[in-house]
């Protein structure tokens, strides 16, 4: 039974892939042949209108050039879209982003390049200059010229086979019929494969050049550095405030109590005794507060035993029933350990406080991608990285190490968060 099923299914699926392949080949052919089509049209016009005179050829050449330049970016966008849709390979476009267009106090508009009278002029000017100065434009142009001779040529095989079949079967001569039959065979055989060169060609010629990638990376790092500076300043202010309102204030209160006790000793010894007891409790509380503060800055266990044990301790302290599974023996760089530790702490707190979870699972593992820390809970979900929120802060902290934060938290739960930090140093 099973064998028969696979036997019937195989030709069916093969036919389906041939049909899909044929359609895709046609699409690739059309997209890659747009530029040659423009030039062919210009040449045709020249032959037909001017009868092939050399001098008037300038006009159609100019039209063809303008048409090519206008078509280049749409062609590349389409190719990128098709590759992403068919193969799942995402090729970053890498175009330069337009800066803000601002109105100056003089009433003129500044677009980063020049002053214009109206915002529309400023935007148009900016678009032109960006287009002209963007290395991506020249990369696109190169791709549009290469595409017809690579992926276009290969994708042309199945449609060419069909054309041969139609022409061949239309003629009574047996040799022509043979060509027609050959065309059918070629079209069907080539269809599942003929569109495939689009991926390697696009990846090779459409990805951002090293210079563009470098420029993007510089932008990214600049933003990260600014983030880090802001986060650090905020952290230091938090510590100052915690000390000022916490331990420091408690010490002052303690001293005040003792001063009061000193005065009351003579007049009201009972009250003095009660105050002394309070003062002792205050001293204990201020010590606990200092300990919490220290733990919030740099947990002693993290320093002494590393990420794994610190996370285990965190799980023990958590109000949630928390399971920890670890596949990691080594110590990491202290800053990375610290970032991951506070990430786990934040996620556990969120799970208990906002998602009202009862259970949580933490797993720490080393994979090819780096260190992967998963935190899952059975809470009500709906977590997201809102700008300025805790998860957003966590994402920024991880970004400092090129790490990422993935949040899967549908409303109603459960929530699953994955932190990944690449780690070549181990």
């Amino acid at each position, binding site marked *: 039974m099973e064998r028969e099923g696979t036997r019937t299914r195989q030709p069916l699926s093969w036919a389906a892939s041939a049909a899909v392949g044929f359609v895709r080949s046609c699409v690739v052919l059309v997209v890659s042949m747009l530029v040659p089509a423009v030039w062919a049209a210009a040449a045709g016009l020249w032959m037909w209108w001017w009868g092939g005179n050399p001098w008037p050829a300038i006009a159609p050449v100019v039209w063809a050039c303008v048409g090519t330049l206008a078509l280049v970016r749409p062609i590349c966008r389409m190719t990128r879209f098709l590759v992403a849709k068919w193969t799942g390979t995402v090729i970053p476009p890498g175009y330069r982003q337009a800066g803000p267009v601002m109105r100056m106090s003089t009433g003129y508009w500044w677009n980063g390049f020049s002053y214009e009278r109206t915002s529309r002029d400023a935007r148009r000017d900016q678009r032109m200059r960006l287009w002209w100065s963007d290395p991506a434009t020249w990369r696109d142009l190169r791709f549009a010229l290469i595409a017809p001779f690579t992926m276009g040529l290969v994708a042309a095989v199945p449609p060419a086979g069909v054309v041969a079949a139609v022409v061949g079967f239309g003629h009574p001569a047996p040799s022509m019929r043979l060509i027609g039959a050959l065309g059918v065979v070629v079209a069907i055989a080539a269809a599942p494969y003929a569109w495939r060169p689009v991926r390697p060609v696009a990846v090779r010629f459409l990805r951002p050049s090293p210079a563009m990638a470098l420029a993007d990376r510089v932008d990214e790092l600049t933003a990260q550095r600014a983030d880090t500076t802001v986060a650090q300043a905020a952290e230091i202010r938090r510590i100052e405030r915690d000390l000022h309102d916490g331990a420091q204030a408690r010490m002052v209160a303690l001293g005040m*109590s003792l001063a*009061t006790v000193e005065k009351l000793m003579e007049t009201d010894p009972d009250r003095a005794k009660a105050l002394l007891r309070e003062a002792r409790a205050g001293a204990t509380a201020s010590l606990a507060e200092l300990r919490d503060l220290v733990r919030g800055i740099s947990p002693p266990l993290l320093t002494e035993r590393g990420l794994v044990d610190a996370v285990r301790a965190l799980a023990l302290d958590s109000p949630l029933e928390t399971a920890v599974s670890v596949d990691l023996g080594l110590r990491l760089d202290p800053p990375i350990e610290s970032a991951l530790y506070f990430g786990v702490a934040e996620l556990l707190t969120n799970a208990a406080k906002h998602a009202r979870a009862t259970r949580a699972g933490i797993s720490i593992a080393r994979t090819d991608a780096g260190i992967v820390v998963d935190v899952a809970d059975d809470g009500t979900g709906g977590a997201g990285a809102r700008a300025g929120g805790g998860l957003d802060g966590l994402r920024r902290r991880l970004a400092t190490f090129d790490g990422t934060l993935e949040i899967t938290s549908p409303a109603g739960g459960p929530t699953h968060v994955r932190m990944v930090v690449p780690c070549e140093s181990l």
Partner: protein
Amino acid sequence: MRIVVAEDLYLLRDGMVRLLEAYGHQVVATATTGPETLDVLLTQRPDVAVVDVRMPPTQSDEGLRAALDARRRVPGLPILILSQHVEQLYARELLADGTGGIGYFLKESVFDADQFVDALERVAGGGTAMDPAVIAKLLSSGTSNRRLERLTEREHDVLGLMAEGLSNQAIGQRLFLSESAISKHTTSIFGKLGITDDGNNNRRVLAVLTYLNNA
């Protein structure tokens, strides 16, 4: 004395109230934010107020600004500013109007409760009370050092206590000297520094502090 206490941290407010009550003073009102402090100061018109510098809503120098504001509306309203750190800048702002009845102390100065309550009473009486830490910083700054090197060690001590706002009699008690001996020292100090002394403690403090600040 009728006293207002402005402090946002419960622990400290409570401790301060108990301490003042142990000394037989009456705390007529407390305040926990800057605007509330200003309001209470203007409606209660206490004999003296103890005000914390940092308070809500902004957690910046709300208390200090409330105090300055209140004194702008009621000149000479006696206020003692408490803080967990002392800054020359704040001291200058507080003393700027020259009307007296002002004090500026570190919170731990409260630990020596007798001296603290003394200072509070001095401020209530229109005098000036500066934390020794403020004065010590002033006296040890580089330029002060150079200009004060002509003073003897004893004169240096007297100058510091003068700047804190103590009267000749109080300085004498602190240094175990007679009032007339202190009087001789102050005359000598003023002579060496070129400041005139008209016998008014507030103006004297101001003169000394101005001298030190401009040094």
